[in-house]
């Protein structure tokens, strides 16, 4: 634990608004959910140097402790994310220069996606928005894996706090991350059959070279020197069963393909981002694979009930009836996705959650969906805390609120799953981050928001995050302005700026490969921030958010 303590003191100060005068905290008068079903009402938690010292109804609070008055708030153990890209920004897609590829059957490793030697721990960006986005909804720990194709690299276990990658990393290498994702077209291995064959070959080659290395190390005299091979070496901990392979396996077929590779080769398996596992639970159980279910759920588009239509149901056409039948089947399959977590629970299989695909802002909504479909609050807390701690081998230090555990805590003003609850504090490794409760938006005041000024924005696009500045000048009904783009380095005049109530609407032209596309931003302004969507023709619509820049 010593290194943790020393590391702790260096983190302090960056994560909270003011330089702390102490690293001893006491949170009082709170409902403490120590673990699912184990609750202390109106108790206190004492934290010293990042470690939970004591928990109870009446505990001694030293004089140097900073008191956090959590008057009837709720404290949970920090949430643990089983598989994510937190802290690892998606790299920009590069155009492939095919003239440089001599043999498409044997492309360079960054194109084939065979890069198991890469370390997520060495690629972390502590300032990446995903870290603060996930922390502010209660996550304090995550397994983070690199973006990529077949073998993107080694996952790492991070704390959602810290200024540098070193400060974030709790465990450097957690698992070898794998996907059934082929190389770009015309490059080997391109399809799932190529990927699985290549996977088997690499694994067996690694077994072979590992055996040879062992013999060589025992008595190298007279033996040919084994060549250094970083790809094969990356498999060694997996072969020794020191680390598992984490397979991203969303569909019912991909889950079973990962299980096939496991049974062919014998490695320990974690299945992540599972979306369609309900029919293969017994098969998963038999394999002893550990499971992280996806928090990305399909959406049911609630259709408006047309009461008139119901009355004239007798006159429904054959195609109306066919549509109803198809909608019914679609709803049934969506329901199965929603019920997946409770089906796993009923079958007695412990699981955590993964967040490779879900947007942070949808997580609470989707957890509530699982509550509607058979999970209880305790089940969900277990799947967010104790179960992933167990599956990732962290139970001695994380997952519950008990003396000796790391001070990873979430404090909410109402029970977490209450629709109106707000997160007030997230404590990671003893660092306290506090959150203001957003005032409900005033509606119907009739007053238009003030868009004038300089805004910084960021948009999540398929090409990565685009940032830039929007400058709006002029007067109501006569606004104009410019927008800059970090990727192109260009600044473009806005062709339309309009405000209605709190809604801001902007549009501007954008050149994509010689085609001029009109981009439209619609967003809600809330004081000095805005949130909304950027729609880019047929390419779809992406989230955008902005912040007013202070006047110079």
């Amino acid at each position, binding site marked *: 634990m010593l290194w943790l303590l020393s590391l702790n003191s260096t983190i302090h100060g960056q994560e909270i608004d003011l330089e702390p005068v102490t690293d001893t905290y006491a949170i009082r008068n709170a409902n403490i959910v120590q673990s699912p079903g184990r609750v202390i009402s109106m108790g206190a938690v004492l934290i010293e140097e990042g470690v939970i010292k004591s928990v109870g109804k009446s505990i001694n609070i030293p004089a140097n402790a900073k008191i956090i008055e959590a008057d009837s708030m709720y404290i949970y153990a920090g949430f643990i994310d089983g598989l994510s890209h937190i802290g690892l920004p998606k790299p920009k897609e590069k155009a492939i220069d095919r003239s440089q590829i001599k*043999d*498409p*059957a044997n492309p360079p490793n960054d194109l084939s996606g065979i890069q198991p030697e890469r370390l997520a721990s060495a690629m972390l960006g502590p300032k990446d928005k995903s870290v603060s986005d996930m922390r502010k909804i209660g996550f304090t720990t995550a397994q983070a894996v690199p973006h990529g194709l077949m073998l993107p690299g080694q996952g790492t276990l991070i704390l959602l706090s810290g200024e540098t990658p070193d400060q974030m990393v709790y465990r450097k290498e957690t698992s070898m991350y794998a996907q059934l994702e082929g*190389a770009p*077209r*015309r*490059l*080997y*291995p*391109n*399809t*799932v*059959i*190529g990927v*699985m*064959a*290549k996977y*088997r*070959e690499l694994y*067996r*080659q690694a077994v*072979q070279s590992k055996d*040879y290395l062992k013999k060589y190390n025992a008595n190298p005299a*007279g*033996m*040919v020197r084994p060549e250094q091979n970083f790809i094969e070496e990356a498999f060694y901990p997996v072969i020794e069963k020191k680390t598992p392979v984490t397979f991203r396996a969303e569909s*019912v*077929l991909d889950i*079973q*393909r990962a299980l*096939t590779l496991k049974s062919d080769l014998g490695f320990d398996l974690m299945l992540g981002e599972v979306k*369609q596992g*309900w*029919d*293969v639970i*017994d*098969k998963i159980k038999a394999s002893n694979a550990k499971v992280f279910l996806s928090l990305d759920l*399909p959406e049911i588009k609630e259709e408006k009930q047309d009461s008139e239509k119901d009355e004239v149901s007798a006159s429904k056409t054959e*195609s109306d009836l*066919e*549509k109803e*039948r*198809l*909608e019914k*089947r*679609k709803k*049934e*399959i*969506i*329901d*199965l*996705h929603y019920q997946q977590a409770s*089906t796993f629970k009923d079958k007695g299989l412990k699981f955590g959650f993964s967040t490779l695909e879900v947007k942070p802002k949808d997580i609470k909504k989707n957890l509530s969906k699982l509550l509607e479909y058979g999970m209880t609050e305790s089940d969900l807390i277990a799947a967010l805390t104790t179960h992933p701690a167990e599956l990732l081998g962290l139970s001695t230090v994380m997952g519950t609120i008990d003396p000796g555990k790391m001070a990873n805590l979430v404090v909410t003003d109402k029970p977490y799953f209450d629709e109106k609850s707000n997160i007030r504090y997230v404590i990671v490794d003893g660092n306290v981050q506090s959150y203001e409760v957003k005032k409900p938006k005033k509606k119907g005041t009739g007053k238009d928001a003030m868009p004038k000024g300089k805004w910084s924005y960021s948009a999540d696009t398929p090409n990565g995050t685009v940032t830039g500045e929007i400058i709006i000048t002029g007067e109501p009904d006569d606004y104009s302005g410019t927008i800059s783009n970090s990727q192109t380095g260009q600044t473009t005049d806005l062709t339309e700026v309009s405000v209605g109530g709190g809604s801001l609407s902007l549009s501007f032209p954008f050149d994509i490969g010689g085609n001029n596309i009109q981009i439209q931003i619609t967003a809600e302004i809330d004081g000095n921030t805005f949130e909304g969507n950027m729609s880019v023709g047929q390419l779809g619509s992406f989230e955008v958010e902005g912040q007013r820049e202070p006047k110079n």
Partner: protein
Amino acid sequence: MKKNILTALLLLISVGLQAQEKGTLLIKNGTVLTITNGIKENSDVLIKDGKIQKIGTGLKAPSGADVIDAKGMYVMPGIIDAHSHIALSAINEATSPVTAEVSTGDAVNPLDIAIYRALAGGVTLSHAMHGSANAIGGQCETIKHRYGTVDPEELKMKGAPRTIKFALGENPTRVHGSGNGILPRTRMGVEEVFRNSFSEANEYMAGWNEYNAKKNQKSFKGVAPKYDLRLETLADILKGNIIIHCHSYRADEIYMLMQVCKDYGIKRLVFQHVNEGFKVAPELAEFGAMASVFSDWWAYKFEVYYSTAYNATILTENNVVTSINSDSRELIRHLYHEAAKTQKYGSLPNDKALSLITINPAKQLGIDDRVGSLEEGKEGDVAIFKNHPLSIYAVPMYTIVDGIVEFDRENDPADMRIYPNPEEQIDVTIAVSDSEYDRCMQDTEFLFNH
């Protein structure tokens, strides 16, 4: 009796995991077309635990067994398609002229609705093949049409011999020669790819033999050949453990591959398409190579201009074991019509015409000891028709796999999908096109856009 897939789905009961299901079933009073042992009028077929126990008259159903009254109907072995790409998530690993290491067994997709549609045409078994983009493509999977499961392993016919796809002519030369500027650019190059590959595999085997012979010697310090899954597979072909199924059209190339196989001691060889097979029928028979053909489909590219609907008959009359295949998710539903065309073009007798879609494809897949005819001890794969299967009025009524009724025309629900797409756009005014195209070249479309 009917595996109540739909009921199960409607009740939202998961399909679940069953071991490969075996049924017990009595089919009574049918006209039994055994294929290998003549026609038995007014006879019964008893299937017990998935296997044909008895063919005779006045058979009693074991207690609890289901009974089908096939009076006035024709009972024949389940139809076998020796060339298909249904139930696969990936078909072509079109990125190298040789991809012997890949296997369509890794891409089996039990959710494919085409399986049920094939069942509706009496087809109980198909050869889920790799495509024809590469000179040496991937290994293929022989699957039984056990529809209603989500487990790919349940479709696989355990114990069926391994098979591999080869391809001659325009496809591999276009994909790799024209597409990437590498060998094979010409038909000569395709032969070179085969010879290089087999020679390399021979060296690889010799290397391992040498290593294995010496490795236990005390002073041994040597290095084993580096494990290579591609060469391992090619070595298995040379050892006779894998049947080659080669995409082919022209007679000169067909002859070429037989010469290559002779040079490397390879005996198990089946030609697919074989549109010019009629030109080299005696040579095929002499080699012992078999042929799987279309009934009357050609002229879809230059190398397939010279062909004839008499191909199957000429091959058959020259003692080449011949089958008629679909290579299509549509054609697979009426292979019985395709077989019947040999009666217009060549006047094949009924038993020989039906052999083209039953016992002969079974021989080509090395499974004729288990399926392909109605014989005691064989697996209970049966198709039952109203009207003779070679009649234009034939209607498939029941299709049975391992004694389980997988298709029943009287109980044939409209929506047999197992997992509908939760994100599908439902718009019934626009017909969804399940259009026909040569799936042999799936995943290679990009090659034709420049």
